[in-house]
């Protein structure tokens, strides 16, 4: 499963209610599709994926997690794969 596909697969397990299927380029943050509880669930999952705690002081969620593709890139970067 590609990075973006695994992000989408996870998002579908969260409490968020999406009006339409999510694609790799679906805007999930600026659109407000993902906020509050589901966003918190995503951040815990991202920490699991990168195996390290997120640094909240340097996190720019709107830029780094705005689409599933962007989330996948963020995870890859954090793992040192890019």
């Amino acid at each position, binding site marked *: 499963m590609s990075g973006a596909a695994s992000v989408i697969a996870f998002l579908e397990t*969260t*409490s*968020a*209610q999406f*009006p339409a299927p999510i694609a790799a380029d679906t805007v999930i*943050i600026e*659109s*407000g*599709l*993902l*906020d*509050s*509880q*589901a*966003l*918190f669930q995503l*951040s*815990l999952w991202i*920490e699991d994926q990168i195996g*390290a*705690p*997120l640094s*909240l*002081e340097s*996190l*720019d*969620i*709107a830029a780094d*997690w705005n689409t599933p593709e962007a989330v996948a890139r963020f995870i890859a970067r954090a793992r040192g794969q890019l």
Partner: protein
Amino acid sequence: MSAPGYEIVPYRPEFAEAVARLHSTLNPLDDPLLSARYLQWKYEENPWLPERLMYVALCDGEPVAMRGAFGSLWEMGPDLQVLPCLADLVVAPEHRDRGLFTQIMRPLTAALIDRGFPYALNLSAAPVTAMAGLAQGFKSIASVDQWGGGGIRPPTSRTRLFQRIDLEDEPGPDAMAALIEEIGGVGPVRHRRDHAFFSWRYRNPLSRYRFLHSRNRFTGRLDGYLVVMDRDDDVVWIMDWEARDTRIAGDLLDAALRVAGPRYLLGWTFGIAESYRQLLVSRGFEQSAQGFGVENMGIRVMAKSLAGARLHYPDSNTPSIFSAGNWDYRLVYADCF
């Protein structure tokens, strides 16, 4: 874009009853009348922004979510700045995870920009709200340090020739403001603690405060105070603590331990003066370990720059609000107690 069925509107007086019912899920007694009084106090009676600056999500005409911003007055070095603090986020359980937080924040943020505020604050963001705030462009300044201690019997203070400590139910805003005016504070970014603040802040109808005042026996001058919030449960909270010198501060802390009795005495802070930190440590207080990552993020203080605000931003000589090292943060600044 609103999700189907939702309309996001500014607060209107005809929503008062429904909004109080919604808010009562946050108040410890789950009492809508108490919530109505609380919201009246916090918004309409606010000294710096006396209006109900709040947006409400309606579903079939009924409020199902809300978010407000109340006024606060900050000293930032030599400058004084009224800043809005985001608060009172409630989404009814059956309407959660539908993007209402983001949808309410958009017009609320636009209203703050329209009023010319340079920054918005969140002074006690719990983890879920903090993550949502980060997604809205807020920056995390710091997580608060929680100090806890108590359940001990402090030694009876030696009789002080010149000092006495009184336990009172009223704040005494004039004397408290005069003391702060004289002794100042630690960091350059702090809430203005003047007569207006002390008069307003301790009228919060959801909390019960008790005031330990250290006074000169002969002149009656206030030389220190320690305020606790006591809801007759297992924990007593230190709201604020100031004194002319460390000896008086220590006596006030001992008096607070006696007020707490077998209960736990807790306080939130960051930027605390080293002499006060040593007083806490010497009485057996411990600082909760700072966790890492999202799950252990604790309570956060956050700020957002409101790009496009009409008023001038503080100039480059003004201490940055985004730097934790500039802050002198106390629990009394947060709105949760």
